[in-house]
């Protein structure tokens, strides 16, 4: 019978404290020397008392145990050494009774070679479904780009099987053949295994070795798109039949590579943050916060319903895969003096021995673990500071029996010591007589008591599990300071990584007026002022400070209902025109807007918000909100609204708190007024509105759905389930199945929206197909201005969903990552050193050499293809037409003069800003900044010659904000997106006709940014390689720009349209001006936002010959 999960809150895992243990090593109840489920049950009170809320059990299935249970021979049973299935069920019930969740480990990348499936596969004929449960080949050269993980023991990922007379694939040990996920039968078997355990009531599944599930030739066989498809299928199957269950992914990868495993919140709920762990040890040993702040800066945001799993130690070695070679060497020197402590690529030691049994260091590391964003995972025994035994083989030294008492066998078992599955730790410092649970339970000052208190304290504050993270940057880098924030909960954490006391000045000006209250002792600290906040910490000291506002005055409550009373859930008259309107405009909307990523007025003071128009859409409402700022400026935002009652409302409040405007009550129960984009039905209604060319009456206008000519084809016939996109920026996206995407334009500006305008134009009036096909739009027309095109605005645009491998930026960075990995070991021959200044024409006319192609590789073909697509886009936008908005126009002298003035103004502003900020810039860019400043006159001269251009081509509609982030890599081609222009500019500016060279320049600068930002990332791990790698970055940039420009010009020439100047000199002049303008714009941006990145635009400006 299917058992329900033990938790009602689907996000329970965010507040959890997980305890990882091996049944074998925890408690032996039948004195056979091996831990078992009955023993574990005996110790559940201990676990509950410790305060952990979830147990993660290492594999406990029948297995030959050649890899500590990670070689499973029967997924549907319990290893007899640990008990029976009934024992497991009894344990599960007992854990749930105590409010403890249970997560089991599923190793489904591979099985044991003794699994019946493998036996059957070996004996089955080639090509049979039974054989296809695993991955076989006749030629062991297949998948040769996949690395070997266990280099100490395995020479190849293929092993010859004499029975099958084929090689079988294994990413780990040769006795662990990989399952073949291309076989649907395998997928079904795996789902059955999961259902089997979930039906019992198991709360979570930790899935091992996720990146390696699928293999493809020509790739490294890690993190493939097909692997994500497998994970999405698994997640969908679990979500369909079960509530509040969790998948924890094991993917020992960089955060950016792990991020896709969260998908849009539709793959794994949790994933380990592997690179953070060694960096905590590194920061401690180096007494420098940088390793931690740096890796967190590289950690991308994850969907709201997902969570990182963080840990200090686990059952494996302290893995050093996710550090640079130099860092790895450092870690070996710092933490493994004895070579026996090393294994594979890591250090096989427990927490306490790693930090020389120093209690303060153990506490400091745990304080970071408990206060960092993510769910903390403790490894059994670390709560009492257990030691290890480096003389045991493999990683068995950190898997010794739990030390319960000072009695025989550490109280773990009453078997004769020789019978134990592993010897207990016995030396005088770490032995069970010195370190055991019983002794620490009776000692109020023990590490165990401290851990218990810390866990209880963490559990009191939801902010630790769910809040945002912001680092402060005290000049003393021995002090790590950060603020966690969620709703009105704010916690400041400060940690001293040094062995000596340290002072720090913290910039807490944004919290001025709040009072820090030390959380452990509830001690009030001095109030925060605008000036730097001084704090002193003892050696390895840490502080958790709750930032509290002033106490509310002791006035009796205003006799006003907190929740808005409605007649029914669709009582929009009350909400938008009745009792709710004042409160919406005065209280709820301003607070709501400030929480939205798409709201662009966060830095400005809102003086009023007004509902300027509204109307009903089924049970939902569409509203236009006019926001007035201090100074009188105004913006209008589009906000669809919904009311959800009961469980649906609670779910939205819990998972998407920022989307909630207010609490409401209705006769059917209480609920919430919220952004309707979190209501699937609202998404469906918008789609239907477009599809049926529907009209909705607003109070002061009309909303119309306008399908494109190919709406029906794009829409298809099947049911389309809506889901929200995770990457919300200035707009909000809803995907419908795999077919459509609806983009809501939040900030409304009257007039045709360039994105819909160009999308419709290109789809309906040109043959250019490298765009997301336009499916329709939802437009708003104010009443009485039906004929006025400039009064219309666009609520939403519908497009076909393009299957893709990511946006051009991410894809390029991945390519660059591989490029730098390859070239990092190759010194660049002098004859191939790229020149510092190189003419853009030269680049466009001389394609790359063979030598360059050999190193830069296939990205050159991709860049050329992008160049061709860009030219084709420009040609499509420049075709003759009677539509005035699109008809190309010559670039007149007057327009060149306006352009010159604008460019000169931009340049002056950028140079002035650079000069003023010179003293604040990082030392390493001082020289470059000086050089750029010295070119000011040449730049002015160069811009001044804009007017002299004899042939400057045509002015047409252009993309307007063209860079790698605006293209998708799709099936070996590119698709161009987002014709919205730069969102900060006015609609008129965004619709203006310009030289297509502006787009070309934008893409060239984007290539430069990609090359240098990846270089910067590599150099954070290998700072000594800067001089060696910089020429490689330059080579990549120049050759990629060359391929792009060459293809662009070739396509233009072939079309015979003089859209951009044909003579080389004029082409170069105009392009150089636009590149220069873009680089100066970037300079301003980086000066204001990311001074550490200023090197990139500076290098870009210096690379221009400016002849």
């Amino acid at each position: 019978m299917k058992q329900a999960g033990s938790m009602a809150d689907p996000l329970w895992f965010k507040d959890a404290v997980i305890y990882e243990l091996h049944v074998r090593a925890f408690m032996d109840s039948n004195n056979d020397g091996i831990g078992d489920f009955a023993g574990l049950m005996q110790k559940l009170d201990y676990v509950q008392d410790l305060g952990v809320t979830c147990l993660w059990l290492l594999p406990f299935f029948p297995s030959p145990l050649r890899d500590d249970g990670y070689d499973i021979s029967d997924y549907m049973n319990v290893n007899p050494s640990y008990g029976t299935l009934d024992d497991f069920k009894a344990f599960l019930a007992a854990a749930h009774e105590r409010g403890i969740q249970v997560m089991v480990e599923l190793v489904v990348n591979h099985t044991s070679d003794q699994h019946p499936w493998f036996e059957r596969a070996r004996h089955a004929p080639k090509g049979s479904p039974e054989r296809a449960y695993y991955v076989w080949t006749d030629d062991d050269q297949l998948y040769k780009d996949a690395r070997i993980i266990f280099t100490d023991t395995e020479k190849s990922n293929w092993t010859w099987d004499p029975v099958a007379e084929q090689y079988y694939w294994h990413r780990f040990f040769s006795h662990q053949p990989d399952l073949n996920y291309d076989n649907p039968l395998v997928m079904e078997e795996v789902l059955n295994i999961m259902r089997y355990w979930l039906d019992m009531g198991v709360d979570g599944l930790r899935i091992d070795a996720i990146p390696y599930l699928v293999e493809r030739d020509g790739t490294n066989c890690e993190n493939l798109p097909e692997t994500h498809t497998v994970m999405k299928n698994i997640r969908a199957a679990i979500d369909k039949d079960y509530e509040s269950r969790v998948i924890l992914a094991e993917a020992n990868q960089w955060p950016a590579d792990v991020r896709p495993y969260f998908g849009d919140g539709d793959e794994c709920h949790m994933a380990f943050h592997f690179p953070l762990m060694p960096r905590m040890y590194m920061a401690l040993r180096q007494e420098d916060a940088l390793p931690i702040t740096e890796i967190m800066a590289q950690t991308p945001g994850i969907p709201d319903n997902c969570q990182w799993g963080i840990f200090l130690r686990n059952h494996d070695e302290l893995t050093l895969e996710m550090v640079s070679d130099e860092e790895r060497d450092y870690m070996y020197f710092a933490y493994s003096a004895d070579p026996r402590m090393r294994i594979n690529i890591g250090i096989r030691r427990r927490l306490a021995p790693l930090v020389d049994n120093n209690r303060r260091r153990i506490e400091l590391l745990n304080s970071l673990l408990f206060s960092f964003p993510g769910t903390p995972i403790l490894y059994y025994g670390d709560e009492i500071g257990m030691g290890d035994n480096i003389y045991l083989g493999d990683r068995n030294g950190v898997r010794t029996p739990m030390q319960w008492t000072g009695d025989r066998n550490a109280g773990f078992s009453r078997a004769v010591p020789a019978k134990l599955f592993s010897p207990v730790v016995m030396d005088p410092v770490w032995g069970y007589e010195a370190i055991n649970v019983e002794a620490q339970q009776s000692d109020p000052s023990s590490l165990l008591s401290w851990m218990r208190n810390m866990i209880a304290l963490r559990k009191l504050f939801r902010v630790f599990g769910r809040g945002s993270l912001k680092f402060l940057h005290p000049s003393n880098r021995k002090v790590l300071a950060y603020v966690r924030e969620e709703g009105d909960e704010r916690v400041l954490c400060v940690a001293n990584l040094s062995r000596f006391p340290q002072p720090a000045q913290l910039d807490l000006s944004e919290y001025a007026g709040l009072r820090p209250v030390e959380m452990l002792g509830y001690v009030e600290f001095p109030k925060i002022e605008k000036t730097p906040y001084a704090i002193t910490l003892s050696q390895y000291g840490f502080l958790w400070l709750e930032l509290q506002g002033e106490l509310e005055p002791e006035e009796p409550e205003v006799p006003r209902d907190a929740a808005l009373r409605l007649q029914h859930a669709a009582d929009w008259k009350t909400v938008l025109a009745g009792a709710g309107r004042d409160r919406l405009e005065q209280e709820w909307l301003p607070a709501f807007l400030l929480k939205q990523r798409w709201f662009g007025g966060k830095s400005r003071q809102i003086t009023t918000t007004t509902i300027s128009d509204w109307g009903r859409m089924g049970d939902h409402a569409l509203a236009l909100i006019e926001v007035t700022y201090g100074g009188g400026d105004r913006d209008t935002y589009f906000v669809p609204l919904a009311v959800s009652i009961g469980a649906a409302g609670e779910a939205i409040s819990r998972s998407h708190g920022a989307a909630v405007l207010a609490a409401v009550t209705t006769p059917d129960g209480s609920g919430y007024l919220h952004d309707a984009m979190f209501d699937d039905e609202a998404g469906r209604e918008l789609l239907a509105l477009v599809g049926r060319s529907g009209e909705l009456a607003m109070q002061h206008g009309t909303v119309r759905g306008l399908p494109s000519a190919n709406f029906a084809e794009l829409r298809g016939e099947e049911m389309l389930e809506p889901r929200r996109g995770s990457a919300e920026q200035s707009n909000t996206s809803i995907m419908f199945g795999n077919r459509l995407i609806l983009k809501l334009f939040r900030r409304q500006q009257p007039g045709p929206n360039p994105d819909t305008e160009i999308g419709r134009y290109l789809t309906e009036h040109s043959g250019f197909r490298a765009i997301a096909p336009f499916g329709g739009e939802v437009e708003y027309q104010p009443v009485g201005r039906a004929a006025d095109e400039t009064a219309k605005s666009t609520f939403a645009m519908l497009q076909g969903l393009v299957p893709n491998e990511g946006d051009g930026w991410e894809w390029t960075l991945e390519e660059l990552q591989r490029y730098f990995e390859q070239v990092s070991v190759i010194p660049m021959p002098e004859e191939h050193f790229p020149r510092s200044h190189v003419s853009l024409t030269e680049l466009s006319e001389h394609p790359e050499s063979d030598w360059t192609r050999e190193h830069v590789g296939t990205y050159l073909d991709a860049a050329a293809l992008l160049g061709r697509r860009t030219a084709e886009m420009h040609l499509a936008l420049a075709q003759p037409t009677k539509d005035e908005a699109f008809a190309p126009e010559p670039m007149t002298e007057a327009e060149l003069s306006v352009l010159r003035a604008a460019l000169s103004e931009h340049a002056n502003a950028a140079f002035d800003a650079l000069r003023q900020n010179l003293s604040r810039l990082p030392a390493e860019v001082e020289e470059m900044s000086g050089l750029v400043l010295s070119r000011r006159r040449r730049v002015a001269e160069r811009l001044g010659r804009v007017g002299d251009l004899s042939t400057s081509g045509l002015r047409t509609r252009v993309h307007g904000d063209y860079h790698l982030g605006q293209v998708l890599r799709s099936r070996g081609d590119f698709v161009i997106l987002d014709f919205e222009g730069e969102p900060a500019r006015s609609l008129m500016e965004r619709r203006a006709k310009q030289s297509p060279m502006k787009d070309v320049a934008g893409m060239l600068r984007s290539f430069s940014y990609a090359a240098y930002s990846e270089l910067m990332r590599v150099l954070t791990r290998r700072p000594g390689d800067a001089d060696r790698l910089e020429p490689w970055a330059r080579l990549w940039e120049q050759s990629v720009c060359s391929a792009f420009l060459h293809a662009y010009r070739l396509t233009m020439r072939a079309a015979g349209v003089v859209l951009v100047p044909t003579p080389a000199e004029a082409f170069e002049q105009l392009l150089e001006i636009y590149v220069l303008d873009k680089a100066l714009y970037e300079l301003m941006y980086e000066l204001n936002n990311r001074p550490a990145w200023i090197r990139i635009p500076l290098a870009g400006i210096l690379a221009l010959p400016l002849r």
Partner: protein
Amino acid sequence: MAKVEVEEETGGSSQSAPQAELVVGLPGVVNVERVRAVAAQWSGVGHRVAVVYPCVPGMSEAPETLGDGAGVRVVAKEIAAIASATAPWLGLPAVYAALLAEAESLGAGACVILNPDLAAFTPAVVDALMRPIRESQCDLAMPLYRAGPFDGLLNQAILAPVTRALFGKRIRYPLAQDFAVSAGFLPGLRQSISTPAAGQGLLWPATEAVIREKKVCQVYLPVHHEYPMAGMDLPALLQQIVAPLFADMDRHASLWQRVRGSHSPTESGAEPMPDEAPPATSPDPRPMVEAFQLGQRNLQELWSLVLTPVTLLELKKLSRQPLESFRMPDELWSHVVYDFGLAYRLRTLSRGHLLGAMAPLYLGWVGSRVLEVESGVPWVSRQEQLERAFEQNKPYLVQRWRWPDRFNP
């Protein structure tokens, strides 16, 4: 007497029952005849009312509809256990849950729960409790009783001060016997007592309202309930009432630790003139103080596991005071209560023994209060002072709760 129509009801379900605008629940053993008699007087008042009371399985009587037209319906709900054996006036969570569920299933606009002694079972009291729900959009109307200085002493000593300090609402009677719940709050309140853990405790409607951010009001009621205390074992009473309070404290720690200060809920009804004059008769404080002194001599070992050295010293000094000057300082009493609450959480002692060890301390507080009232101290304002002391000493509780180290002052 109005004509009684009898309908068939199967399995205690009320799916076929007519909708009720108001459900009046009586969570305990009631005098059924009296319920019928009083309910019959309400028929024809203009809105549909269902009066629901519990009965043991197999004893269910068919529901009755009293009166003509829009009448009053009387429903007996089958529930395994109806009342606590030791304190029958303490409603069992399962009974409350069943009554609230019945109100939900009848689609009631509100539910009024009244003490099964029927002292408040009058249209006037029901109307008074309903008015803030109806007119001020309150979710919970709690009672303000006309009480004397020695009524509800456990409430005065522990329940009211702790509830106010913890949850920031000045609720005079947190363990209310008579209260009204809005339709919007019904499901939440029912859920709060439907978990296995909550089933062992008591219903604290105001606490649940605060947790769910519901609006609470207080209504002055001209009602007085008699609680038969004679012969009742004090440790058992503490076990029944204070232990659930401490359990709730543990359950909601993450919430109350961030509440600071307190507010008075909106009040309605006719506020009686405060009567601060000492009552004509009062209990004898001597045996209470002697019980405290005996505890001081015999329970040192247990108290020292729970209380801090400073508190122990203060108690020792207090035990040496002559009867006339025996006064338990508010701060000392708040520390005692908070320390016992913490010890309950940490299971420093078995919980039964813990509450037993608290009994002499509570008697010491009662003795002190009796002596104060006898000496003419205005007890209403004195109570306010005590509650404020609990509020002011809340940081002491938070501090000890968060870092429960025995090595403290």
